[in-house]
């Protein structure tokens, strides 16, 4: 039996990033993966012959550019293709489009409200300032505010100084921004309901909150702080689907001598004398190492792969209380042609981006009420994209791949498990909504992969289907992620670490948690740190 220096449980993009840095440091590293494929939720699979689906995550922006550069992911085959466009269409046939040209964008806003056209500049400046503040913090370990250790105090001081640089008003703005609802936040800038709807989608994606819920403004920031090639707030497609991200990181990992075994779900982490010593997998094998890193979410980690006797009871309770309610679903659709949207006309470049069908904040909030009441939204919020328009490798020539992200979808239906009939009903709700805006859409549908939280949990292993491995609310962010006192990637047992999206800075295909955890592990092993520091934007 071979002994490794470190074992990473789960080959998601964070697990692979973590493993890559450990391997690069010269450690002998093994990644064990339950599925026959790697990638976790950053995965592309050919479900319908000829089509490549980005089955779960579908667009890329948050992936840290520092890591992209440092791991030479381009050389390992990753190409991020930025896309333009994006539009909200109302049931009356009106539209609100995204344009890269500032003047054109201004005119588009002015068409809906001249006041809002002026406010947009102020809004963009304010949000960009928040991005500039937070971006360099993503590749840092959160300080423990209750600790007196020099490192934590230094880090707190650093944070204070960073905030101070932006000035007094910025500090107040930040406090408000992190605690307000997206509707109230946008209400301070805009009057047009459609403009507010159009911008508020980013505040609810993946979250178990409505547009009126305090705390959603932060979620918006979470979706704005990324970039594609330095263009902050831009989003792109990973060429070949989101699996390309995981594959490139895996390739980098292997180039450093790392090893991946698939079809090897971890049954149990072996603990001896208060420290981890290895893992036992479902294929009946044991792998040994003094360092075990979990890429699984905190609930799954502490309630499924440990013998409860090996853990402090407080941790199990924290894991049980970890808020990880799923709220999203996904439809991946193979199309025999390009659907028409009469509101856009033919060949409208807006169709290259995210499409939404929106009318009012109230309608969006009612979609959340459905979720609260235990059913999928009758009028869900859709983030619809046709990646094959930008990336032709996703579908056969002349055919198309449509990715539809759906908010809100509950982890259980009124307290009971999902059934296949429920899933069919959910699927039809979404298809019907699209068909109302695109008359020829249904006739083009060739295959639909419909994923509710049930499928996300069963296939990807995300508990309750939560796409962020845990909700992005104040009790679960920064030094509270995953648990107060455990936010520095170390688990409760010697040699055990966490590296998934359930740790700081959270979900989205960022790779930051994996890299941050690697830095802490290397520090504990007294090895030189290889993880790059966050860049500063100018």
């Amino acid at each position, binding site marked *: 039996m071979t002994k490794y220096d470190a074992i990473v449980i789960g080959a998601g993009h964070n697990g692979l990033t973590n493993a890559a840095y450990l391997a690069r440091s010269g450690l002998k590293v093994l990644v064990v993966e339950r599925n026959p494929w790697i990638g976790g939720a950053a995965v592309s699979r050919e479900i319908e012959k000829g089509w490549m689906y980005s089955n779960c995550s579908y667009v890329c922006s948050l992936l840290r550019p520092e890591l992209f550069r440092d791991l030479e992911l381009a050389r390992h085959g990753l190409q991020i293709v930025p896309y333009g466009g994006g539009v909200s269409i109302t049931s009356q046939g009106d539209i609100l489009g995204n344009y890269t040209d500032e003047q054109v964008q201004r005119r588009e806003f002015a068409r809906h409200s001249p006041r809002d056209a002026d406010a947009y500049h102020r809004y963009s400046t304010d949000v960009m300032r928040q991005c500039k503040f937070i971006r360099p913090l993503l590749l840092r370990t959160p300080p423990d505010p209750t600790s007196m250790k020099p490192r934590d105090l230094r880090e707190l001081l650093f944070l204070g100084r960073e905030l101070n640089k932006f000035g007094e008003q910025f500090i107040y703005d930040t406090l408000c921004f992190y605690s307000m609802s997206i509707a109230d936040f946008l209400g301070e800038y805009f009057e047009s309901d459609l403009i507010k709807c159009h911008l508020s989608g980013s505040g609810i994606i993946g979250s178990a909150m409505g547009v009126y819920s305090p705390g959603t403004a932060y979620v918006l920031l979470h979706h704005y702080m990324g970039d594609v090639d330095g263009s902050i707030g831009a989003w792109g497609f990973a060429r070949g689907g989101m699996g390309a991200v995981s594959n490139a990181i895996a390739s980098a990992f292997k180039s450093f001598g790392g090893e991946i075994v698939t079809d090897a779900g971890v049954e149990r982490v072996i603990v001896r004398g208060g420290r981890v010593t290895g893992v036992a997998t479902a294929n009946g094998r044991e792998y040994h190492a003094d360092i075990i890193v979990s890429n699984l979410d905190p609930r799954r980690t502490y309630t499924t792969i440990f013998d409860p006797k090996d853990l402090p009871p407080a941790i199990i309770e924290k894991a049980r209380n970890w808020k990880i309610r799923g709220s999203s679903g996904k439809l991946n659709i193979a199309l025999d042609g390009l659907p028409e949207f009469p509101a856009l006309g033919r060949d409208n470049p807006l169709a290259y981006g995210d499409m939404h069908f929106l009318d009012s904040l109230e309608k969006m909030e009612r979609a959340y009420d459905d979720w609260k009441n235990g059913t999928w939204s009758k009028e869900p919020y859709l983030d619809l994209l046709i990646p094959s328009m930008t990336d032709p490798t996703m579908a056969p020539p002349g055919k198309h791949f449509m990715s539809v992200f759906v908010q809100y979808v509950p982890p259980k239906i009124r307290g009971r498990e999902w059934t296949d009939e429920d899933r069919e009903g959910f699927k039809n709700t979404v298809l019907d909504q699209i068909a109302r805006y695109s008359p020829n859409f249904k006739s083009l549908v060739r295959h639909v992969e419909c994923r509710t939280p049930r499928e996300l949990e069963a296939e990807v292993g995300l508990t309750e289907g939560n796409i962020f491995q845990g909700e992005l609310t*104040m009790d679960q962010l920064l030094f509270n992620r995953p648990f107060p006192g455990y936010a520095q990637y170390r688990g409760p047992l010697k040699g055990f670490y966490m590296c998934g999206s359930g740790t700081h800075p959270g979900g989205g295909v960022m790779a930051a948690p994996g890299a941050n955890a690697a830095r802490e592990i290397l520090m504990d092993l007294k090895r030189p740190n290889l993880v790059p520091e966050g860049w500063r934007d100018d």
Partner: protein
Amino acid sequence: MTERDRIVIVGGGHNGLACAAYLARAGREVVVLEAAAQVGGAAITREIAAGYRVSGCAHLSYLLDATIARELKLASHGLKWARTGLKTVALAPGGEHLVLDGGRLESGTLSDSDRSELAAWHARMMQFARVLGRQHNRRPPRLGGGGRDELLGAAKLGFDIRRMGREPMREFLRIAGINIYDVLEEKFESPLLKGALALDAVLGTNLGPRSNNSVLALLHRLSGAAQDGAGPSLPEGGMGAVSEAFAAAARAAGATIRTGSPVGRITLDGDRVSGVELEGGEKVSGGIVVSNADPARTLLRLLGTRHLETGFAHRVRHIRMKGMAAKLHLALDALPAFARLPVALAGERLAIAPDMTYLEHAFDHAKYGQCSPDPALEITMPSVHDKSLAPAGKHVLSAVVLYAPHDPRASGDGPRRELLERTLGILERYAPGLRRLVVASELLLPADLEREFRITGGHWHHGELALDQMLMLRPVPGAAQYAMPVNGLYLCGAGCHPGGGVMGSAGRNAARAVLATELSR
């Protein structure tokens, strides 16, 4: 003394009166101008039918600051308590009920786990609330600006949190920003218990139990009791008696109080206030104007936006200050009998919020501008403890009704009648026969409270108490130190730190700010 030295206080609410008392004690000439015929603002007692008197808006004292009561000698100015430390009775539709005395279950059925969690929960919440309570009589610090004093103020706040100890601090930082629903779901089993605990977190706010900020709202409510331990209390003679005691203290210190004198406008002389003009046209001059009115009314209406910098006016206009609670007053021919509730408990604080989903559903309607079809209620019958409020053998009932949004769709006679009908229907369900006892009834929607008490939006806290509108962010970021950006103008109402609830701290803090600034001038 010249007219320039005179201090004019706009509004004789309890904070305006407290401010007046402190300023007069410091030897300043103070005149309080109150629009209504009696002082007290939203803390008043008034008659709803011959011989029946109720507390017009606020109906329980949770937060009255012990330091202020002592400094102003409110007891010797006539403040007496009919009852302190009311228990909470959580009512279920079937007649089953829980009687809670702080963290102790006095009667009713709870699992062992709930029982022990309840004690721990209460102790924990009190510990956290004490941190907030300690801030009441302090001026909120400015962040990132100002000098050493400001840094020291911020450090004090940090220290208060830190000195709780490591585990409590962690728990505080974890839950302070989130919602009561998630936290109670972690700890308790009994839906009735959770409903009653959640009700305290959402009373008077624009929040449902699942809205973040509701834990903070609960801590605010508890922050008074955490200081002196009294809990919800009933003053003898209704809440108006509290205001009367403040007024007596102010008068004794030499302040002049004029009722029936609504201020129409704050006047300026160059870049400095010169006094006020009453709605009738009379001018009252003074070099300093302290307003007990809400920030929007003070700055946008009485002063006028043309005297404010655009960005500042924008912030004031966007203070969230729409009321969500209605107030029900009933004159009753006899004490109503709540099903299976011992008569001895009828005078406690009765809660109708049988579970958290009930509350959340009530809130869902309010989000869209409708009154809740099944409202939640906080009920008191103060006449049980205080015979002066009703004729012999008769009673008054006062209830906060959740939710009633400040919205044109939910204002006016139709919605008022409907909500009254709904509320009486619910009361009848819990206390069969109650409707037959009703001699007179009154329901005040937020729009009615706005009109009667001159509070913009009818929000009894003069602005929502949420993370983004508290401490150094209240009333607006950058102006939380009571002085407004016009020379000589100050705020002293619930719209400033530490916010709503009859405590007097905003008035006291404002008085200190006035004295500190004017001394250094």
